[in-house]
């Protein structure tokens, strides 16, 4: 056989060498002719005549050395297009198949690329790390930074060139007081130290970043706006620097505008406030800050963590407070250094890789199918090709013919696939149903994605075309000429390659179908989890009450109680309440230590940590949470801070088993007041539906300041939370609920924005969004795989039937029953299917393990799901084979047996 490697080894021979050879030939021929008796002049003339056109020969030689076929490219393409138009079924099937495969792959690849692979938009992003701590404590395993740890790490470390602290926040933004739109707006913000801006290395668009002295509290308030906010709300005001804007009721001077790509800590951040840390008054045990740092050149995250490990025990010396050396030792607190990218991307990577794998499978299936189609086509052209070969057609010409057909189809499929991918990504972005894919806004089909798509396309074209063409070459000319003459059925070996492709398709499709089935079962299990609260007919919105507008606890509480009274009086409203943390919404989560009375902690034992939330009395009925024991809180009174708590059933069970919990007491700080349990709620799965029920302590809306509340103000006698979620239970249509509710709030507090207005059902849907997102994509992939697989099987079976038309006709003529022929064809199809399914089951056992982390309440090798997938595949296969089988049984004898003309 021809060895393609020879091309690479081919010696470069120059044109001059060839010309010399031709000259030598002419000389030799002349000598010879002279010897035969011609005169020298005649001999020269005759030698030239016999050679023919010297120039033409040299040109032919030159063409062989260069890529002559390239010059014929437009012609080749035109001819390939004409051939494809003449075979529309083949062309359309192949194009659509490739469109699905390439579309799915590029869409998912651009997601993976944009979210996981592309570096963060900052200077030397690989050096940026997130610093946090792990610890061993019931209820908490991970904390970020307190002001004390941040200050000490920044001052004493040897591994970072810079450390910055920040915290996400949300603020009320209102008129600047200079006459522009005064409407109040709730925007996402971040509180950040000056060092953050310098470290990330993105220059402000206008003005400046913060200065180090602005990290201290008590300095004149300053703000940096994001480009989007500046362009939107402030209409790109060129004189924005130095202007004052009202944030939470306080005038802040705008000192800078950051470009949109800055997006730190996330793309939603609209403005940045200074951090206000007082080194003289730290809260060393309040870990409400996050830290970002830049590694010095050559320092690994592990080395950095080791350096911080050395520093951590000295933090209490430098900043005495509630974080003691003993506490650090007891909780086995350890600094953890992870790349910033990992922390920003979060946990989406597994779901994305799974979907990416599924898309890759789909592409493989599509390729197998198109390769199959090409093989069938090569078979049809077999006779034609062999005759051309016998007449001396070059191998290159035949391969090129298939290649250009493949290239055209792949290009067309690629273009359609890219359109499909664009539409798919657009749909994904617009659904925004809280899939919460970080950096989704930055995902687009760019150069890298297009390069991958182009690479896939050319690879497909090559494989699709060269394989069948080479196969046709492996056969002996004479054999084929004789075989493809009349009366022959196709040789056994010709079927093998096609069967292999069908088996591969079936096996891959089974893996996808099983994966989708497992995700569907997980989703179903999640949906059937009883969350412990009732999301129907329940609506929520948020408000934040800034200190500037509501300076005292009394002001804030009286607004909340009046709002609740008016909301409850609205028609159709059954209950209304407020709470600081909604179930299934992990923002605003708080934790507290719990010291249960009569349970002495052993020496060296740390108290358990539980979730804590502040609630009004009506919240439980508004959320549909049943009270199993006791009663709810009393109506909040700004003057009274009752020492009462309501706990969830899971928490009561942990400490008091099945005994009544009402009347039990515990403290929230070693020296703090004792709280009495007045009620026990049912189990609430408020963290995530696939997690065990929450162990939560509910405190009343008005509490004593101090240890009971982390950010209590010691100057105030009473304390109340100021970022609240209202919940209203109403039987009216959603639109008829939200409008009057907003109107009520606006009338009571015109400057306070109402935001996050949502049905509770939507909040719950968001919490399962990741599962349903993966499920949706896997379902699409598996349906496409099933379709393509069915088309492939149908094509192969019907082609097998068409090749055996004459044989079938002879059988019928000899008295075979149509039913028997149908069975014969079906049997062959089923044999192929069974092999595919067997292989697919093997692959499934191995591959579904990667799904484990995404599954809930179903094993990766769940027998019912596997059985269902096998049944579905078999059903589709029977359907795909049924039509050709039926055709086999009703062959028209007269046509089939007529001799070839």
């Amino acid at each position, binding site marked *: 056989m021809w060895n393609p490697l020879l091309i690479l080894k081919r010696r470069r021979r120059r044109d001059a060498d060839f010309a010399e050879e031709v000259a030598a030939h002419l000389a030799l021929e002349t000598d010879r002719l002279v010897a035969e008796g011609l005169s020298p002049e005649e001999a020269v003339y005759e030698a030239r005549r016999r050679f023919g056109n010297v120039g033409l020969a040299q040109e032919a030689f030159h063409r062989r050395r260069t890529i002559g076929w390239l010059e014929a490219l437009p012609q080749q393409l035109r001819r390939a297009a004409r051939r494809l138009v003449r075979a529309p079924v083949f062309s359309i099937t192949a194009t659509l198949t490739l469109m699905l495969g390439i579309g799915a792959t590029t869409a998912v690849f651009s997601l993976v690329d944009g979210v996981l692979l592309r570096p963060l938009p900052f200077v030397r992003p690989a050096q940026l790390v997130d610093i946090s701590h792990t610890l061993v404590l019931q209820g908490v395993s991970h904390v970020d930074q307190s002001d004390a740890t941040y200050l000490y790490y920044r001052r004493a470390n040897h591994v970072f060139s810079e450390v910055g602290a920040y915290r996400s926040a949300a603020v009320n933004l209102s008129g600047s007081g200079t006459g522009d739109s005064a409407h109040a707006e709730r925007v996402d913000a971040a509180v950040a130290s000056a060092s953050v801006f310098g470290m990330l290395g993105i220059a402000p668009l206008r003005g400046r970043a913060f200065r180090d002295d602005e990290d201290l509290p008590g300095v004149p308030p300053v703000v940096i706006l994001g480009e989007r906010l500046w362009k939107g709300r402030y209409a790109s005001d060129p004189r924005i620097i130095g202007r004052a804007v009202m944030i939470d009721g306080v005038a802040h001077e705008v000192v800078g505008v950051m470009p949109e790509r800055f997006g730190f800590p996330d793309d939603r951040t609209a403005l940045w406030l200074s951090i206000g840390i007082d080194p003289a008054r730290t809260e060393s045990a309040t870990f409400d800050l996050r830290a970002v740092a830049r590694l010095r050149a050559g320092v690994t995250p592990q080395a950095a963590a080791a350096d911080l490990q050395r520093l951590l025990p000295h933090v209490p010396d430098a900043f005495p407070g509630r974080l003691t050396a003993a506490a650090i030792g007891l909780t086995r607190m350890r600094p953890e250094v992870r790349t910033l990218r990992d922390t920003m991307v979060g946990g989406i990577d597994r779901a994305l890789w799974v979907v990416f794998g599924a898309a890759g499978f789909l592409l493989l299936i599509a390729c197998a199918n198109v390769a199959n189609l090409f093989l069938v086509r090569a078979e049809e052209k077999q006779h034609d090709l062999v005759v051309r070969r016998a007449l001396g057609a070059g191998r290159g010409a035949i391969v090129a013919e298939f290649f250009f057909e493949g290239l055209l189809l792949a290009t067309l499929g690629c273009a359609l696939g890219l359109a499909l991918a664009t539409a798919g990504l657009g749909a994904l972005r617009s659904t925004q149903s809280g899939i919460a894919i970080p950096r989704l806004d930055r995902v687009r089909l760019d150069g890298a994605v297009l390069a991958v798509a182009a690479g896939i396309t050319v690879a497909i074209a090559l494989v699709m075309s060269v394989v069948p063409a080479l196969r046709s070459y492996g056969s002996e000319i*004479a054999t084929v000429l004789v075989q493809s003459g009349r009366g022959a059925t196709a040789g056994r070996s010709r079927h093998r390659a096609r069967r292999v492709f069908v088996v591969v398709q079936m096996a891959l499709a089974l893996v996808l179908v099983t994966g989708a089935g497992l995700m569907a079962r997980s989703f179903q299990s999640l949906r059937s989890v009883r969350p412990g609260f009732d999301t129907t007919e329940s609506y929520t919105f948020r408000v934040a009450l800034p200190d500037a507008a509501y300076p005292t606890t009394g002001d804030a509480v009286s607004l909340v109680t009046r709002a609740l009274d008016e909301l409850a009086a609205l028609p159709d409203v059954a209950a209304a309440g407020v709470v600081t943390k909604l179930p299934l919404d992990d923002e605003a989560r708080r934790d507290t230590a719990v010291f249960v009375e009569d349970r002495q902690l052993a020496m060296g034992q740390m108290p358990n940590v539980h979730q804590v939330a502040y609630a009004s009395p009506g919240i439980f009925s508004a959320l549909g949470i049943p009270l199993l024991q006791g009663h709810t809180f009393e109506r909040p009174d700004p003057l009274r801070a009752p020492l009462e708590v309501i706990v969830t059933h899971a928490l009561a069970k942990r400490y008091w088993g099945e005994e009544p919990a009402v009347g039990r007491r515990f403290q929230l700080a070693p020296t703090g007041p004792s709280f009495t349990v007045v009620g026990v709620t049912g189990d609430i799965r408020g963290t995530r539906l696939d997690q065990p029920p929450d162990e939560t302590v509910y405190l009343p809306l008005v509490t004593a300041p101090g240890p009971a509340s982390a950010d209590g103000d010691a100057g105030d006698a009473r304390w109340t939370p100021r970022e609240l979620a209202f919940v209203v239970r109403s039987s009216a249509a959603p639109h008829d609920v939200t409008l009057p509710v907003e109107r009520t709030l606006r009338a009571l507090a015109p400057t306070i924005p109402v935001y996050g207005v949502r049905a509770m059902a939507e909040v719950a849907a968001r919490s399962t969004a990741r599962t349903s997102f993966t499920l949706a994509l896997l379902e699409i992939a598996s349906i496409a795989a099933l379709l393509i697989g069915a088309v492939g099987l149908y094509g192969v079976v019907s082609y097998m039937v068409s090749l055996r038309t004459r044989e079938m006709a002879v059988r019928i003529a000899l008295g075979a029953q149509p039913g028997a022929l149908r069975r014969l064809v079906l049997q062959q199809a089923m044999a192929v299917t069974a092999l595919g399914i067997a292989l697919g089951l093997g692959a499934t056992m191995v591959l579904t393990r990667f799904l484990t982390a995404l599954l809930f309440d179903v094993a990766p090798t769940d027998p019912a799901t596997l059985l269902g997938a096998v049944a579905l595949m078999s059903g589709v296969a029977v359907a795909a084979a049924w039509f050709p089988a039926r055709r086999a049984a009703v062959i028209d004898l007269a046509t089939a047996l007529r001799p070839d003309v």
Partner: protein
Amino acid sequence: MSPRDRPALLQGTLDLLILRTLVSGRAHGQGVARAIQETSRDSILVDHGSLYPALQRLEERGWIRAEWGNSENNRRARFYELTASGRRQLVRETRQWWALSEAIGLILGPQSSVR
């Protein structure tokens, strides 16, 4: 024999003829052309213009290799000789040729029926 009666050389068969000619030893292009002409008793006249591209093609595929040398009458010429894979290719192509001519013979039927 007039040029009109001379069978046109089927494309592709020139390769076969070149390989066959080189079995008896190395030769330059003009020698190959002469040898084919003489062995076929002047039935086949090799077009010298297409001979050299064919030689080049065979060389690229590794079936023959070439080397500059001196001819019997001391002219510089490029000499060709068969390689091992060229020998195998010759066997293959010869077999195919016989199968093909047999098949064509079957299709055309006995010689007498044409007249």
